[in-house]
């Protein structure tokens, strides 16, 4: 009887250890792709990331060399255009959810924003194609920037709201008690206090849409040359990586790896900066 119980106890402990081991192996499997992808990016891309890559235009098929300067600049221009739409709408919308509104309406808006976050990014491409490209008869940087900007809105709304809610109420009360009007209190006291967090949210949203390809396929469209007019098609780094990756040319494959390495490095850098900005607090933000 007694030994039976001991055996049972031992068995239960073994089972527990086994479960822990399985969970540990699962965790390793989950992060394995990160290591593998990064290893292959460096192994295949590092040799092609050179001065030319950052300063030269793509070369035609068959000519070795060339770079992606137009795609890098194009991506930055698209992010700039996206910011014009995404940042004001997102930040002010987040301010509303944190500072105004009734609990019920706000929880509904929050719900809609979360659902909107789940809309596949390719859908945005189709919608902006219908809204802008068909109407103005052509692919353009504006259309691409709009698609990315719209994707940023729900992301920024939610992060902004969260950090504004962290601002202690005493700050608001102090300003209001001094006779400062409500909106000035929000802009100069509340938003200023939360500015680090707001910027964090914006950076994360930019890092996220900076890697998006699907919404650009039929809005920004891509361009092998410099874009001199925002109403014309424009190159973007993720688009160029896609085009090169599915091409049959070895040299383009090398360029794709190099572009991917540069893009991932940029995105990881933003994430590291964000981690430094928010160190020690609101880990849930990141």
């Amino acid at each position: 009887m007694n030994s039976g119980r001991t055996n049972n106890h031992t068995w239960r402990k073994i089972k527990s250890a086994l479960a822990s081991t399985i969970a540990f192996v699962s965790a390793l499997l989950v992060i394995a792709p990160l290591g593998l992808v990064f290893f292959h990016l460096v192994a295949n891309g590092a040799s092609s990331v050179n001065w030319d890559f950052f300063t030269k235009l793509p070369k035609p098929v068959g000519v070795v060399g060339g770079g992606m300067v137009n795609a890098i600049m194009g991506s930055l221009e698209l992010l700039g255009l996206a910011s014009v739409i995404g940042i004001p709408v997102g930040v002010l919308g987040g301010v509303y959810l944190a500072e105004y509104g009734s609990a019920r309406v706000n929880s509904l808006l929050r719900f809609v924003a979360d659902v909107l976050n789940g809309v596949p990014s390719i859908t945005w491409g189709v919608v902006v194609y219908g809204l802008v490209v068909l109407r103005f008869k052509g692919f353009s940087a504006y259309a691409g920037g709009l698609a990315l900007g719209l994707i940023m809105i729900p992301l920024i709304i939610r992060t902004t709201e969260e950090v504004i809610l962290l601002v202690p109420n005493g700050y608001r009360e102090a300003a209001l008690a001094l006779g400062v009007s409500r909106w000035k209190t929000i802009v100069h006291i509340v938003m200023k206090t939360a500015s680090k967090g707001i910027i964090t949210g914006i950076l994360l949203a930019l890092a996220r849409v900076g890697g998006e390809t699907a919404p650009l396929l039929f809005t920004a469209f891509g361009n092998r040359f410099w874009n001199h007019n925002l109403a014309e098609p424009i190159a973007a780094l993720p688009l160029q990586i896609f085009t090169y990756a599915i091409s049959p040319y070895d040299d383009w494959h090398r360029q794709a790896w190099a572009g991917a390495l540069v893009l991932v490095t940029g995105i990881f850098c933003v994430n590291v900066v964000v981690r430094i900005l928010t160190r020690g607090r609101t880990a849930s933000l990141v």
Partner: protein
Amino acid sequence: MEIATPPAVATVEPHSTRRAMAPPSRFGDKAFEWLTLAMALAVVVLVVVIGWQLWLGSSLAIKKFGFHFLTTSTWDPVAEQFGALPFIYGTLVSSLIALLIAVPLSIATAAYLTELAPLWIRQPLVSLIEMLAAIPSVILGLWGIFVMIPWLRDYPFPLLKRLFGWTPFFAGPIYGTSMLAGGIIIAIMILPIITSVSREILRSVPNLQREAAYALGATRWEATRIAVFSYAKKGLFGAVILGLGRALGETMAVTMVIGNTPQIAASLFKPGYTLASVIANEFTEATTDMYLQALFEIGLVLFGTTILANLVAQILLQTMGTTSATRAVQ
């Protein structure tokens, strides 16, 4: 002389304090409130605009093909015959494969992170998972084409064929680009989101649950299984559905490895096609109006299913009181 003491400020719930403290309305205040309200309403407007634009863009196709669009499998742009069944099939099968792979791994990892792992290992692991979530789809696709597919073709696929070749699912020639490869790459894409939402869910389980189990002599695993998992069941289901929503709409990586052939085949070694992939591949090639209309309708189907998945997921997550969890990975 008596010094007037300030009236005690009642400590009410913060939201209502703020409103009670609002000074009498002035023009600037009203204007600012309306401005921010307009921006917040953008999310509602956007959902409506997406639905409206997709419907508008596909109205002719809807009229012409009706319900048959969803149930026929001819995709012939030249003859202007469009049936979306192969894409619906491909989307469902690849997402199902992805869930079969990603759900056990993600939930086990989440349990490891909240219940089983030594404390010092937790935060670094969470950071790594966030980094995985930050890898763009197109880069995972690039890796898929040049690293994953050749490897799958050389080692795991032949092994699967040797073991399960007698079933229709693993029969036939091995090309590499296949439904199975598509499912695997989607699994990698959705691992981080299911893991971090599940982790938030498990973290929201009250400690009393665990303490009760330990007090009864439960081992660590027993406490996790009995006290934590059963309590968090609904929320974990929400995390899975959220992952499904992402899987259905995953585009670039899957387009690069699934083979892009509109067919319905039992063998997972055969190439497939998904709703999102056909839009990505054929949209700029749509030369006729009806072709474009059909692609818009595919977009509408995709939007409808992902919205549905997200609605269900958010409702399940909200009942667990962890709405913020969905933002853990973005």
